[in-house]
């Protein structure tokens, strides 16, 4: 699904953008349909690329969760209690492990 970024792909993308840039977004009233939205451009088809794969090569997308650390900072934790139920879960694993 993902295509590796290569200089030749960038050239292709630039060419595609130049071709596609003939009309700004607000200028063409393309009848919306599922088929139209999913159809590749002639350029993309010729190069076996989907529009999405071209966009993938040049869009810099900030992280959803993976590239972004947990959205909070470290805090000192002192004397944190662990519930007896949680300790029982660990103990059950130890019992099974000891018996193995």
């Amino acid at each position, binding site marked *: *699904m*993902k295509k590796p970024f290569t200089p030749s792909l960038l050239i292709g993308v630039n060419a595609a*953008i130049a071709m*596609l840039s003939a009309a*700004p*977004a*607000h*200028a*063409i009233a*393309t009848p*919306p*349909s*599922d*088929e*139209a*939205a*999913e*159809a590749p*451009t*002639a350029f993309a*088809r010729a190069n076996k690329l*989907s*529009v*999405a794969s071209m*966009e*993938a090569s*040049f*869009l*810099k*997308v*900030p*992280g*959803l*969760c*993976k*590239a*972004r*650390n*947990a*959205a*909070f900072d*470290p*805090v000192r*934790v002192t004397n*944190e209690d*662990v*519930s007896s*139920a*949680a*300790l029982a*879960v*660990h103990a*059950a*694993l*130890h019992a*099974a*492990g*000891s*018996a*193995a």
Partner: protein
Amino acid sequence: MNGPQSHRLIPEDLTLLRGRLLAMPEVFAFADEPELAAWVASVGLQREFGTINDELARFVFDPLTGTAIPAAKLRAELVRYGEAVGVRLWSKEHDRLEIRLVGLRALLDPRFSFREDGTLYQCVFFPASLAKIAALEDTELVIVRDWALNTIFGNFDPAKSYYQTNFWELENNDALRFARLLEARKLPLLGTHDLVAHIAGARAEAWPDLSARATKVRETLERYFGTLRAPTIASLVLPYLIGVLLDDLAQPPNYGAIGRRVVIDQALEAVASGRIDPRRPFALTRFPESYEKAVQIARDSNLDALALRAKTAVDAIVAEIHSHSIVFRAS
């Protein structure tokens, strides 16, 4: 048996695991497939620990100096204890560790992580135990097959960040997938982000609000995309923003955070308004810069004029999507 034994997987083992995973449904619970789920989660954690993708490292401190231990100094390995599989994390240069993350202590195996004097010298996790402890808080841990295939069993490179997967997440409308999980009170366990950001400190009391919000997100996105199989990237930007903030809201320190809720609501309104038609053949040439602004507002502790600032940021994203998009004709 004395303690957990180091375990090394050979490439053939990984191929077998991947094959078993491929045969599984899109989402499956630890409770349903405990052995396979534990292997997948253990491999995911072990591969991330000590790399730049390690989200736990930021919370691992040297108790003597009070400074964070660099991820590069941390080591990890798979371990077996009886039939259980898990992962061990330690530092070669520190004989004591301090974890500055609320809720993690309950997840650490107490016998194999702490000395008798109570000091922490390594972190041992058994995913099977994590699933049972999460269940105590009404939380079902699951494996999401495609996420595992794309990360753990994808072309994983510990030297590279997950930056490369962000487009994959956007293109695959992962916000909708995540909303479906939260709605059903499920959390994935595939790596350190899930462990640190979501599972440590998870509390049952958060679910009614979180699940209801996830339902609203799911319903709005399903109405928006309808039966469309491959929405345009332009139409996936706002759902992506919603996914990021929903992810934030599912993190215990951020439960119920007003900023995230308000920005999510504004983004949902913009989605529902149809101002970006997911069927219109847009190609996005630049990711909207206002996206970061919206995230910043959502995470800001300043709540002054929050609704107005959130609406302005979301409107700016919509405007940028229109100005940075080009329309192509189907040929």
